[in-house]
């Protein structure tokens, strides 16, 4: 019960501080937008390759943007040592992780939903017919990125060269998510769409494994 109420309280704090400053959302939206526009110049949006490569480029942009978004997740708790006050206040440290990863997932999803119409226009790919499946893949992929990323952000925030460490750890770890999400998205956005349930199942299992690991070992990541 206290885990749930503490998570909701902390989630409220995360959302309030972000919507007040809009730092992360602005950075991520601008970054994905720039990457999508640059890639759209590189490939012709009228050709069939656009359907083949577009989703992969979209996921690559999401992954890079996520590494930007996740960097300050624990770093900004160091400014006034607020992580210590949170650890003093909550009975279960998992609530700190849970609130942060839910907030990161929501921010990432919001960015993706804002970017989806632009992606459809730039790459000439209709997304509406398979939107519900696409949103499911975006949700599972974003949850996986946020779960692993939040854990790694806690680790890298305490290290030297922290700005370099997070992408170095994050990108290889998230390669399976990137490959599977891109493959499932390509099938969904094909002229003859196919729902790859195996891939969707893999994403769900990846998320569950990382969530469980975070629940079991998260407390140790917060120690000084």
């Amino acid at each position, binding site marked *: 019960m206290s885990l749930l109420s503490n998570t909701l309280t902390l989630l409220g704090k995360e959302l309030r*501080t972000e919507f007040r400053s809009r730092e992360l959302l602005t950075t991520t939206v601008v970054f994905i937008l720039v990457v999508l526009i640059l890639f759209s110049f590189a490939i012709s949006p009228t050709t069939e390759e656009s359907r083949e490569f577009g989703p992969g480029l979209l996921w690559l942009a999401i992954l890079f943007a996520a590494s930007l978004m996740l960097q300050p997740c624990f770093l900004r708790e160091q*400014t*006034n040592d607020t992580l210590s006050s949170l650890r003093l206040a909550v009975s279960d440290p998992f609530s700190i992780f849970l609130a942060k990863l839910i907030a990161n997932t929501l921010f990432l999803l919001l960015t993706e939903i804002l970017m989806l119409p632009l992606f459809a226009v730039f790459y000439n790919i209709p997304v509406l017919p398979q939107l519900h499946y696409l949103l499911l893949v975006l949700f599972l992929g974003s949850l996986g990125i946020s779960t692993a990323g939040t854990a790694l952000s806690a680790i890298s925030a305490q290290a030297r060269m922290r700005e370099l460490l997070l992408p170095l750890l994050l990108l290889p770890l998230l390669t399976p998510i990137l490959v599977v999400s891109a493959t499932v998205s390509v099938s969904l956005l094909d002229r003859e769409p196919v729902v790859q349930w195996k891939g969707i199942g893999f994403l769900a299992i990846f998320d569950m494994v990382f969530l469980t690991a975070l629940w079991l070992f998260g407390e140790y990541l917060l120690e000084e």
Partner: protein
Amino acid sequence: MTSPTPTGLRFDNIDKRYGGLYALRRVSLEISPGECAILAGRNGSGKTTLLRIAARIVRPTAGTLSFPGATADAAHSRPGYVAHTTMVYDELSAEENLVLFAKLQGVPQPAARAEELLREVGLYDRRASLVRTFSRGMRQRIAIARALVHRPSVLLFDEPATGLDPLGISWLAKSLGDVHRSGCTVVMSLHGESEISALATRAVQLDAGSIVADTASGASLHSILTFRGA
């Protein structure tokens, strides 16, 4: 402020090592319920580490920490801790910060408790202002309010007077006195004698991570506090 259960503090053979460096070495210390103890010592003597272990922010490498008299699951049995930094969010208002920490610690009627504390620390008129707009003294006040929000029975202060002007130090000494008189056990690290050190009933001197002096008598207490480098 009410303290439902008088709670003490006991360190048994505490070691804290960072790599090969000992920050604390076999520290054993018992602070009785209701005591106001001062930790003195040079920079790097281990005062902050000992306080952070007492606050359960840092885990000791060896040894045990206990709170004699504490109720296992009561929120007030968690110590209140005021560090060098404010430990509150700059981008939230004073009121939002206090309500946040009150809710996290299961304080009944968090908004009412926040209002009560804001009046006590003299920040009620600035309750809606973001903490980042506060002066050093105001930040120290909000830091103290945060530490008191769950009515702790043990309060830990790490150099509470740092950066405060004489008026701020007087206010702090009065507030600490009120908290101590309400039955709260107070442990603080301090440099030299001041209005705040006048509250002390005991002084413990640390050097290179070990306790080198521990006294409750007036003259010895004075000598520890005025020790050069303390």
